């Protein structure tokens, strides 16, 4: 089924720029995503400084104007979700792990895989160009609601808005192609003997996420095309004056946008499961239940989109239905959290850096989940919609998903990816600095939201009730914590680069894990395995009674 690998020496150029090897493509996604993440971090630094110290010249950026502020928040959201979370969690780890974990030599469509990355890179370049065109970048929020996004006379960015939208649409095309690849590879290239329930959870999660993405992205690409036509050739899909409807975009967008949350959540949950089982030497509690809960979550995620639009002018009767479906999602998600907690029961837990991040994900994500209940309740959302409570809530889901998830994955698979061990002490310093400062950024925002502070305002001087000393102190606390969190990322980069250069050489299986990628050499060569492995059991057989070792690799006959 798989293509033949040419195991010959390749030139540097061919190897690193036009490679079809899934590992190289995964790394390209990883580094591009991390670079975009740094850009997103810089954007948030600029506008948080403006919120805490209105009117100052932000070091490295300058004075934040009204239009500049809007462009900053818009692109922070877009970059962090579309160009950081998705490429890193789905594309990077998906590309790197899927073939290794199911025991094959490469993806089914390697050239398509390369094309996917190239389109993604193009979209990232177009997005960055859109910051610097005449009148600046697009500033209509990452949700890009028309009519603001549809007409240059409203958004005042005749160049920035179409470029931004083209970048977003291209990015979706890239992941659509990547998703086809993941699903096909899982279905066709599994190692001999690997049944459906022997597949590691992270692979399942990435593939389910790809399915969700493919099922939801169609309406959005259609919607984005219509929005582009509205912007550029004067159609009126979203123009009420000519018979269109601005709410149509909101439905199309959120029909994609809500599943999108689960698209990035599932891969992280999969990675967290891998790490938790390995470092607690425990079998995953209720593998099948876990899997079906995520399926159920995925299906439900398609019927909750209008909870983003309770007060957007939809029929108020619809809000009741969407309240029910939204709160129903708490059931499978809670199930997943319970199973993760139950996995720890009776374990032998070693708190190395990857495990710390994995555990932090669960603890922080519970906060995100619990606060989601407030917003999913229609009656409460009347007050909280578009306030900082929402901002705090979704950062309590997205930061664990994207940032903590990224670090979980990197600290865990770094030895496999680069053949070197990372420094655990520096990792722990990075962990505590990141986690503590992260909580101090977003807990104040909950209180700001309760005080009725609304989002996307560059300066609260026009709102006397919000222009008080107490609220300013909370904003300053959030901003200072953000600076601390950003500063601690330097520890990570130092550790990363130092380990690449001087790290201790990693054995093939440093964590004594069961899954197939640890049976390949570190780092795996082009083609991954000397001979393709055969699978005899599930991925989480830790602590099986009556054996000398507490782990039992999937490819070990007995």
């Amino acid at each position, binding site marked *: 089924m798989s293509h033949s690998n040419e195991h010959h020496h390749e030139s540097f150029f061919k190897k690193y720029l036009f490679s079809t090897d899934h590992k190289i493509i995964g790394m390209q996604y990883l580094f591009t995503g991390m670079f975009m993440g740094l850009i997103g971090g810089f954007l948030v630094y600029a506008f948080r400084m403006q919120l805490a110290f209105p009117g100052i010249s932000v070091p490295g950026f300058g004075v934040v104007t009204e239009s500049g502020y809007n462009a900053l928040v818009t692109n922070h959201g877009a970059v962090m979700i579309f160009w950081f979370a998705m490429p890193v969690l789905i594309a990077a780890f998906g590309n790197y792990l899927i073939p290794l974990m199911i025991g094959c030599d490469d993806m089914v469509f390697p050239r398509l895989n390369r094309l996917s990355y190239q389109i993604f890179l193009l979209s990232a370049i177009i997005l960055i160009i859109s910051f610097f065109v005449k009148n600046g970048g697009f500033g209509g929020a990452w949700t890009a609601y028309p009519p*603001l996004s549809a007409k240059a006379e409203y958004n005042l960015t005749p160049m920035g808005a179409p470029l931004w939208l083209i970048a977003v649409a291209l990015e979706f095309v890239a992941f659509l192609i990547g998703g086809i690849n993941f699903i096909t590879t899982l279905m066709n290239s599994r190692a001999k003997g690997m049944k459906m329930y022997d597949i590691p959870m992270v692979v399942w999660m990435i593939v389910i996420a790809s399915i969700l993405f493919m099922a939801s992205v169609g309406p959005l690409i259609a919607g984005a095309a219509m929005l582009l036509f509205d912007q550029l050739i004067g159609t009126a899909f979203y123009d009420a004056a000519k018979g269109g409807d601005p709410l149509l975009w909101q439905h199309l967008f959120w029909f994609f946008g809500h599943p999108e949350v689960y698209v990035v959540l599932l891969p992280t949950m999969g990675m967290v499961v891998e790490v938790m089982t390995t470092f607690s*030497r425990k079998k995953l509690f209720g593998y099948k239940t876990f899997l079906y809960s995520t399926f159920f979550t995925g299906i439900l995620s398609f019927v909750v989109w209008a909870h983003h639009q309770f007060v957007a002018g939809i029929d108020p*009767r619809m809000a009741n239905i969407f309240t029910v479906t939204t*709160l129903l999602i708490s059931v499978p998600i809670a*199930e997943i959290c319970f199973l993760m907690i139950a996995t720890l*029961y009776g*374990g032998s837990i070693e708190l190395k850096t990857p495990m710390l991040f994995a555990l932090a994900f669960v603890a922080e994500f519970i906060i995100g989940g619990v606060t989601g209940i407030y917003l999913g309740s229609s009656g409460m959302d009347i007050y909280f919609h578009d306030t900082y409570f929402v901002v705090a809530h979704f950062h309590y889901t997205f930061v664990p998903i994207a940032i903590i998830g990224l670090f979980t994955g990197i600290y865990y698979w770094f030895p496999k990816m680069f053949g070197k061990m990372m420094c655990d002490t520096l990792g722990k310093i990075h962990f505590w600095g990141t986690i503590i400062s992260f909580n101090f950024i977003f807990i104040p925002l909950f209180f700001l939201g*309760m*005080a009725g502070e609304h989002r996307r305002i560059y300066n609260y001087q026009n709102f006397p009730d919000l222009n008080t000393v107490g609220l300013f102190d909370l904003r300053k606390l959030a901003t200072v914590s953000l600076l601390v969190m950003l500063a601690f990322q330097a520890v990570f980069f130092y550790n990363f680069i130092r380990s690449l250069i001087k790290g201790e050489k990693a054995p093939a299986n440093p964590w004594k894990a069961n899954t197939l990628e640890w049976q390949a050499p570190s780092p795996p060569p082009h083609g991954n395995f000397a001979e393709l492995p055969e699978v005899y059991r599930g991925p989480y057989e830790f602590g099986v009674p009556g054996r000398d070792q507490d782990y039992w690799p999937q490819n070990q006959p007995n």
Partner: protein
Amino acid sequence: MLQHFLPGISSYSAQSDQLFDLITYVMGFWFFLGQGLFFYFILKYRRKPGVPSVYISGDSKQEKKPIAWAHKLLLVCDIVIVLAAVKVWYHVKQELPPADATIKVIGQQWAWTFVDAGKDGKLDTPDDITTIDELHVQVNKTYHFLLTTKDVLHSFFVPVFRLKQDAVPGREIVGWFKALETGEYDITCAEICGVGHGLMGGRIFIESEEDHQKWVDNHSSQGSAKLGLNP
């Protein structure tokens, strides 16, 4: 709890705040249960030399019993929250109590225009009072508002009323409120509406009957035509 952060002074703000408290108590229980167990397990099952991990698959019904019970309880909690949330929603958004007065609220980049019916109590007559970024209402009076926008999406947000409603081009959305206390508070636009979104702040003046009557008498005769406005 919300009262500590911002007073609620509309007829339904107390309900909204009670709903907040209810969700906080219910979810607080789950939060502390989940986090408590989680940290307890982490501390209790730290790696000790010579103590192997226990092999539990978690596939049998017996093993999953505690989780199944937690689930049933969670479902009950969900139903309670749904009922409470829908009750508040229905009261604020679906019920429309008879109006004592009707006003127009018009959003545009980047200001709120308010039209009061004036002395005769009828909209679209010459004595209507048109104001920019200032809404004068009378305490203990049920108002209907007709919400429209001239350009992009805006969102009429009165934090002290716990009221929010987006204004959508091409639609006239009807809502209601009734203030229970006098005072002066913020009106904001909660939907991003372009460059001046941060400038789109208004004030609501909730006045006693005498003060409000005085305000109407002083302004009604001017009419919107004199102010050079086109409501």
